[in-house]
């Protein structure tokens, strides 16, 4: 057993760290206040190769592995959870299923623009009445000649506001439940796609969360992704991988808050001593760090299992669940260690606290993760 990152992964980690330190950290407060990641930053992240880390070079990717991708999302999220989820949703929820389920032609057509960031990707599964129960998809498709015609609505779509490329799920017969669902690749610049709104949220405010109406959206039949009627499998497989991205995002948010709390506890003096001299603070730090380390081990392990092409459904559910609960716990404690200052925006831990919560909810709520884990244990 070897728990050390390889030299190549360390080179990557420090390169990403340097970039984040100079290009993202200084503007993280502004991203939250403006509800907007500057386009210039998206371009810089694309130039760094953050938007195509684990896809082969022949499709415009960097050709690295899942562990590298996890490290990128983690390091970016240390400074900015919004930028972290932009990368995660784009990579594992849009390019991911196209790479896994797409034909060679589809990969050649869609992946290069995604991997270079020319198009930002999103994943359109959730609907107003189909959240955890994705089998209840009510968006409908029908075949007309060599086109599919899609009608319905989608909600809470990360990166939706960029109107780039989407992997979209729709049903042709609601009575078939999940067996009626198919997956499609959609160019969101097409007629029939309307943004209803970009949501105003508690956290990850720099990230678009978009509601769409789809009215007679026509897409060429060649945009069917995978086998007709097997879209639910595409969604579930995609979320398996995506959870490693969300775990990495949560891990990064927790680490970012921990770094600040540790430093602050050494600087802040009350009762004539640094507050880190109080056992009450020391025990918090010990619990926070232990949760972070266990989250990291679970997350990196799930990534390594995927790289090794082994089964990782249980591991990705566990790392997502544990890392997200670590993120909410650690950010809460980091704020407490900061006392009143923790509640003030300039100190950033309050943003991290707000950013952390969503990681317990999206890409399968933690209740759903527990369903996945226990089902596998009992099967």
């Amino acid at each position: 057993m070897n728990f050390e990152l390889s030299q190549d992964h360390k080179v990557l980690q420090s390169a990403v760290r340097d970039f984040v330190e100079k290009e993202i950290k200084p503007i993280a407060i502004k991203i939250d206040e403006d509800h907007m990641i500057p386009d210039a930053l998206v371009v810089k992240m694309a130039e760094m190769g953050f938007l195509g880390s684990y896809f082969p070079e022949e499709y415009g990717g960097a050709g690295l592995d899942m562990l590298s991708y996890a490290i990128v999302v983690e390091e970016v999220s240390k400074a900015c959870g919004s930028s972290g989820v932009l990368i995660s949703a784009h990579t594992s929820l849009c390019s991911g299923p196209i790479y896994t389920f797409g034909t060679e032609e589809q990969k050649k057509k869609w992946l290069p623009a995604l991997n270079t960031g020319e198009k930002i990707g999103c994943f359109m599964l959730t609907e107003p009445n189909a959240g955890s129960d994705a089998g209840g998809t009510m968006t409908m498709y029908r075949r007309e000649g060599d086109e599919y015609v899609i009608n319905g609505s989608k909600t809470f779509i990360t990166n939706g506001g960029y109107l780039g490329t989407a992997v979209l799920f729709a049903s042709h017969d609601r009575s078939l439940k999940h067996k009626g669902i198919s997956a499609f690749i959609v160019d969101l610049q097409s007629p029939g796609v309307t943004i209803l709104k970009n949501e105003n949220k508690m956290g990850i405010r720099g990230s678009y969360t978009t509601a769409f109406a789809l009215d007679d959206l026509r897409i060429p039949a060649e945009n069917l992704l995978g086998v007709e009627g097997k879209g639910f499998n595409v969604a579930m497989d995609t979320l398996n991988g995506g959870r490693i991205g969300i775990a990495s995002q949560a891990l990064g948010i927790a680490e970012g808050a921990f770094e600040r709390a540790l430093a602050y506890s050494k600087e802040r003096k009350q009762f004539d001593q640094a507050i880190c001299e109080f056992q009450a603070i020391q025990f918090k730090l010990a619990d926070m760090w232990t949760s972070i380390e266990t989250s990291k081990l679970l997350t990196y392990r799930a990534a390594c299992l995927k790289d090794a092409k082994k089964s990782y459904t249980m591991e990705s559910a566990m790392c997502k669940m544990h890392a997200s609960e670590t993120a909410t716990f650690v950010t809460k404690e980091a704020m407490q260690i900061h006392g009143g200052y923790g509640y003030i925006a300039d100190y950033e831990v309050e943003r991290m606290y707000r950013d952390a919560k969503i990681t317990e909810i999206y890409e399968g709520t933690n209740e759903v993760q527990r369903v996945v884990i226990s089902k596998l244990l009992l099967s």
Partner: protein
Amino acid sequence: MKLLVCIKQVPDLESRFKPNSEGVWYNETDLAFRMNEYDEYAVEQAVQLREKMGDGCELTVLSIGPDRVVEAIKKSLAMGCDNAVHVQDSAASSKDPWQIASIISAYAKDKGFDVIFTGMQSQDRGSAQVGVTVAEQLGIACTTTVVGFVYDNGTITARRELEGGIKAAVKLNTPALVTCQLGLNIPRYPTLPNIMKAKKKEIVAIPVADLLNEAPLAATTSFHPPAKKGGGIVLEGDVGELVDKVIAILKDKTAVLR
């Protein structure tokens, strides 16, 4: 055209340093290492020249040290160096600048490098001797503390930083060596695709015994962190007494009243 850039890996300067068991250098356990900051500017300048000269120009990066320095080498390869030399030496930190320079010169002497880039100094030892000593040993021109670099047809025009913000321009013909100062350029980030490409570039490993022929000229005899600052001195008494005491202290501890 052949270019060489020499880099060193140093500990993160925010680390807490403790003396090693011999008391002559720091203990490396638990320290995080990265590329010497001055060397990042050297690599960037070398890569810019490499890109300007195009095909037919070859840029080699060299580092001396234990296996961990390969990390810094890989970063340089990802920034754009073509190939690398790792001089394997687990005891590099106990060698003096003369020995380090002689290892580099022994490697470089028959290779015909047109320009050699080094950092102005290392962030840990800070001798600023290695670059100039290499130039002397190879018998080539050298300029230091470079903040501007232009190469044209066998001539380097370098801007040097002097004391008090004054700059000087120096012209030298190749082969030549320059030592690079902070701010010379903006070192690029290694991108993910370039990190991937770097994996395929060659790193030649050479045992230090094959290149080292010199004994040290200046051995470090002790290493110690700065003494902990005391809590200050509180003076008591009437004003006249206080003034006398202050004057005595200033005479004793400073140069202001001599």
